[in-house]
């Protein structure tokens, strides 16, 4: 009877462990799944961006290349059509000027996006719930290329052919 009991307990543990692993794989790993995990210490600030690119929850928030915290939420503000990014800054970085500048940057050429903070000159510091006003959106490579071509065609090939694309590029460069 004794041996039977340990056998049943062993099997039960194994099956439990297996299903726990399955549960983890199906719910925690895909982004659509539920999120567990306790809240970490630190204070939260927000910033509004015109375009967050493919910034994700969990992306780092850095200053001078050093990680200060992470992105905790990205949502859309239907009032002024902007993306609101919530950030958690580690508690030891209390003295960040509240007129700091936040921009979305790219790690490497094809890497993920992160938020880079540049310090402002203010004497008061960011605190829980404050908002960073000065932001710069993610640079979208396609629009950059578009802009380059628009400039290029309006300068270089302006008089060669009066195609539709050409005129459009001209009106855009006038703006």
């Amino acid at each position: 009877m004794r041996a039977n009991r340990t056998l049943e307990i062993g099997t039960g543990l194994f099956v439990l462990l297996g299903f726990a692993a399955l549960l983890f794989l199906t719910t925690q790993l895909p982004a659509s799944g539920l999120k567990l995990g306790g809240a970490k210490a630190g204070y939260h600030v927000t910033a509004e961006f015109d375009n967050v690119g493919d910034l994700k929850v969990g992306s780092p928030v850095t200053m001078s290349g050093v990680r200060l915290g992470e992105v905790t939420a990205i949502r859309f503000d239907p009032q002024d059509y902007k993306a609101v990014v919530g950030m958690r800054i580690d508690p030891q970085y209390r003295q960040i000027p509240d007129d700091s500048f936040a921009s979305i940057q790219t790690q490497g050429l094809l890497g993920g996006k992160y938020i880079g903070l540049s310090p402002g000159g203010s004497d008061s510091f960011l605190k829980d719930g404050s908002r960073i006003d000065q932001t710069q959106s993610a640079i979208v490579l396609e629009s950059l290329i578009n802009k380059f071509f628009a400039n290029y065609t309006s300068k270089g090939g302006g008089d060669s052919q009066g195609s539709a694309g050409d005129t459009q590029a001209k009106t855009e460069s006038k703006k």
Partner: protein
Amino acid sequence: MSYLLEGVRRLGSVMLFLVQLLIQCVPALARPRLLVLQIYNAGARSLIIIMLSGLFVGMVLGLQGYDLLQRFGSEEALGTAAALGLLRELAPVITALLFAGRAGTALTSEIGLMRATDQLTAMEIMAVDPLRYVAAPRFLGGVIAMPLLTAIFSVIGLYGAQLIGVQLMGVDRGVFWSQTQGSVDLHDVNEGLVKSLVFGIACSLIAVHEGYHAEPTAEGVGLATTRTVVASSVVTLLLDYVLTAEFL
């Protein structure tokens, strides 16, 4: 020519055995105690080797992946690479290979020895179907244990990759997990599950079949055990290719 014929005969024998087993699986479910014992033997007792292998496979994946990805300046993709590699390929295949070596050999030699010592014949004489009481629970135990072992392997492996990538190489933890979550789909988890289920059926079937039809001598049982490992490994890798092509 005779080799070819022998191969075809063996394939046919395995398939017929599978049909007989599947028929006996339903009444075997009515004896959960036998099934629990086999899940314990095939699953719980393979836990240590599976977890240890998973950890080291994940760690190697972390090292190699980091070295490769940092050449392109995209070491944040390490989590993606490790998770997809583990879920889709490494976890099901390596678990199946380890299962064949650890549990498959035990099954074959156990049943083979029962055959060699006439225990199976004795059961038949007592009107007890050895397929139902010996073969079917062992087969079912292996089939149930394999997906669970694979899932455990995946999780431990991912932890190992994270250990190397994040703790040792300094990939950002948040980026590691968010990139992983951003690219892993339920589809990928599914692929691993289906693979492990198929491998579980194949490996258990081969192990039980080889034991059941082993030559009733000491040498025969040894040969049958060897054949189990060889056949299980080859069939696993072959099926893996077919299933991968199916899923992509």
